[in-house]
Structures are given as C-alpha cells and as structure tokens.
C-alpha cells in the first residue's frame, strides 16, 4: 500500500495546561497556555476526521481533564465511528469523571502516567502529592471502567530504576493488565532536567536486564519500548551478519507509527508524532487536515527519511551492523542534532552491546 489517503490515527493534544509540572514532560505543559484551539475548532476536526475515515484518536494534553468542553468533545466522538483512548495523569479524575467515562463505548482505554510505586519516587518527577492524587484517580477509573481498560505508562529515569518491580507489584495488586516501560526522550522539560534524569550506560543495561526478568515473572503485562527494543536487539544478535554483508547495501531507516498518524497540538500546529512535538508541519487554522496530510512539504521531508539508508547517517557509516539496523526513532536525532537523519542512541546495537561507550552530551 503506497501513501495513505489520510492518517489512520490522530493524536489530539486538547490543552497545554497541566496541574502538574513533570520534569520529563515532552510537551512542556504548564499552568498557562495561550492561543489554544477553541472547542468549536476541535469539533470541526472531528468532522473532518469522520469524512477522511480516520479510525482512532488519542486524547491528550497537557492534562485533558483540565480542558473545558472535554466531555462535549467525547460525546461527539462517541456518535461517530471513531474509537479513542485518553492519556492522563489521573489526578483530576474523581468518581464523577470516571463515571462519565463509563458511558463511552468507543473509549478503548485510559493510559495513566505512573513513575513510582509511592510518593517517594513518583513525586520527585511530578511534584508533591501527585502520587496520592494519581492513585486515587486510577482507583476511580478501575471502579468505573474495570482494570483491563486502565493502562500504566512509566518513563524510566534515574529516579525510578530501582522501583520498577514495585510499580509492577502495585499494578498487579490493582489488577491492572498492562505496564509500559519507556525510555526518556530529550524534548520539552526533559531537556532542562537531563542531568538529573539520564541513565548512564551501566544503568541502561541494568534496565534492559531488569525488564526481561520482570517480563518472565509478570508475563505480558510488562510491555513498552524497553521490552520491544530488547527483543529487537535479541533478533539482531541471532542473525548471521555475513549473509547481509554480501548484499553490500545498508538497511533502510525503517518506517514507524508516525508514518500513519498526525498530532494536533493545543495551538493548532500539526506534527508527525507526539515524540516530535517541535517538528511543526503546518497549522490546522490555515489548512485542512487533508491538505496537510497530502501536500505539506515538511511532512514529505519527514516521510523521505524512511527511504534513506543507514550509511547516510554519519555515525553509522562504518558500523558493522549497518546491514541489519533499522535506525530507531527519528525523534532521538532530531532533539540531539536538529536533523531527522541521525543516530538514535537508545536503538543502537553497538552501544547496547558495549562495543561503543556512549557518553551523553
């Protein structure tokens, strides 16, 4: 299938406002946000998404439960074919809000950010009292939606590497079925707090090993990019490099889910992915979704990355793994160097294997 006529998924960041100020927030959400799209604009976007036959929305922010008119928008989505999920810190989800969510058949799940098993770790990243309020929201969601529709998203950093199993244990006690462990990306607030947050190589290795142990012990409830990257590294380790070298052609930078989706920020800027928050393509106030998807030059530039070869990446030109490497996430080099064509150190097998010692900038 060649270029799609429209995205499959839309990520709607309804507001830049947040009641927390997390050190690792990729969107740099804060208590104030200017020039947000109006509710009327968001409702029009839903209309266009229906016309384009888009299938899924991710409702996010900021903290979406701070967005005035949230339930008006969800009511509208519920009356279309489109399914949706919500990303939230859960701290504003009281019994009433959770009860309202129960009425939505199109709601797949609510993904809650939980970075610690107690206030001792979680609050270090998210602020005092965030854990207690978040846990209360999680319990309200479970009571309303059931544990299978409440997912946990945990960003791994120096603050919580020794707390990963406790987080899983807490999730298990709550009868939750999915905890995703994710690496940090150096965008938004995380850039400002990099020194405090970033894992060194030894700590990264520890996390990979730990996630494997936890997967064995807790089964499929353990997921996320730390697990899938480890699987990828394991696959890379099992191939006969000589077979691939024979072709003499390095692998292509592989397409990711950003090839099938768009993000609309609170200020109307459209980006290819929530991990590329600052890669602004066009503003929805000026162009339709369809026009942006089909014709925006910057989106073409983004997609062009996926046809490029690994040996076009300076750091990877002489790497012996260039015939089998997929190049990782475009957001990583973008935030390191400003270019989409660059190395994602988190996906680098050479670094994973310890054949190169990577020192963070």
């Amino acid at each position, binding site marked *: *299938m*060649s270029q799609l*006529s429209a995205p499959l998924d839309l990520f709607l960041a309804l507001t830049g406002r947040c009641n927390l100020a997390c050190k690792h927030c990729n969107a740099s959400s804060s208590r104030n946000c200017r020039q947000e799209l109006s509710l009327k604009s968001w409702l029009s976007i839903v209309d266009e998404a229906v016309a384009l*036959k888009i*299938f899924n929305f991710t409702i996010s922010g900021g903290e979406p439960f701070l967005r005035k008119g949230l339930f008006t928008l969800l009511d509208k989505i519920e009356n279309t*074919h*489109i399914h949706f999920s919500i990303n939230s810190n859960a701290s504003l989800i009281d019994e009433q809000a959770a009860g309202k969510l129960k009425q939505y058949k*199109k709601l797949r799940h609510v993904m809650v950010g939980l970075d610690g098993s107690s206030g001792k770790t979680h609050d270090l990243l998210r602020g005092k009292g965030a854990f207690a309020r978040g846990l209360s929201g999680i319990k309200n969601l479970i009571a309303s939606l059931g544990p299978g529709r409440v997912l946990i998203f945990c960003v791994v950093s120096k603050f919580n590497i020794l707390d990963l199993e406790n987080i899983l244990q807490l999730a298990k006690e709550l009868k939750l079925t999915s905890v995703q462990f994710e690496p940090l990306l150096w965008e938004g607030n995380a850039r400002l707090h990099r020194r405090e947050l970033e894992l060194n190589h030894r700590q990264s290795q520890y996390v990979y090993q730990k996630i494997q142990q936890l997967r064995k012990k807790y089964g499929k409830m353990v997921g996320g990019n730390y697990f899938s990257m480890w699987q990828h590294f394991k696959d890379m380790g099992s191939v006969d490099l000589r077979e691939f070298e024979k072709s003499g052609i390095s692998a292509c930078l592989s397409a990711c889910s950003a090839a099938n989706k768009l993000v609309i920020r609170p200020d109307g800027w459209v980006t290819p992915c929530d991990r590329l928050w600052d890669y602004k393509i066009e503003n929805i106030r000026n162009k339709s979704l369809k026009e942006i998807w089909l014709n925006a030059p910057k989106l073409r530039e983004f997609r062009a990355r996926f046809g490029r070869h690994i040996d076009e990446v300076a750091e990877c030109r002489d790497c012996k793994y260039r015939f089998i490497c997929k190049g990782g996430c475009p957001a990583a080099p973008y935030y390191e160097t400003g270019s989409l064509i660059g190395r994602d150190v988190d996906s680098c097998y050479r670094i994973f294997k310890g054949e190169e010692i990577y020192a963070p900038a």
Partner: protein
Amino acid sequence: MQSQELIPKQEIVVRKEGEDAFLFDPDTGNLLCVNRLGYFIWDCLIKKCKKEGIIRRILEEHEGVTSEKANSDYEAFISNLKDNSFLGVKRHR
C-alpha cells in the same frame, strides 16, 4: 425451521486505498487491511452475491487464477472476516 446466512455487517466503515482497503468495525474497533482480492470479495458480499457467483467472478476478472486457488482464497478471507466479527448473521425461516 430456521437457517442462517452470514452477511457483512452494515456498520463496517470501508476506506479505499488504491486497490486495497481498510475495513473498520465501529462496534469493536477491529481494523482489517485487505488487498485487492479481499476488497473484491467484500464488495461482492455487499452486493449480496453468493459464494458460487463470487468464485465465478474472481475467475472471470483475475487472470491466471485457478478454481482451487479462488476457492481457498475465498474461504481464507471469509474465515478472517468471521474471526474478526465483520460478518453478521441473517436468519431465514
């Protein structure tokens, strides 16, 4: 006595992409990506064609396809539709 017939669910959203298509069920959120032949069969089902008629049309419109291949592709596709609940049941008295 009642008999049953499997028919495409009315509410399925079909999004054509070149010769391929996406089928999306708004009830379950299930999404299927189907190729040219899959879309052809789906379109025939929507037009209420029966299995024999669909196989005949596949043979007419797809050069080089044998009867056995058309039959097995048809069965595999119907099985996929059933597994993903894209077919509803129509009861006959």
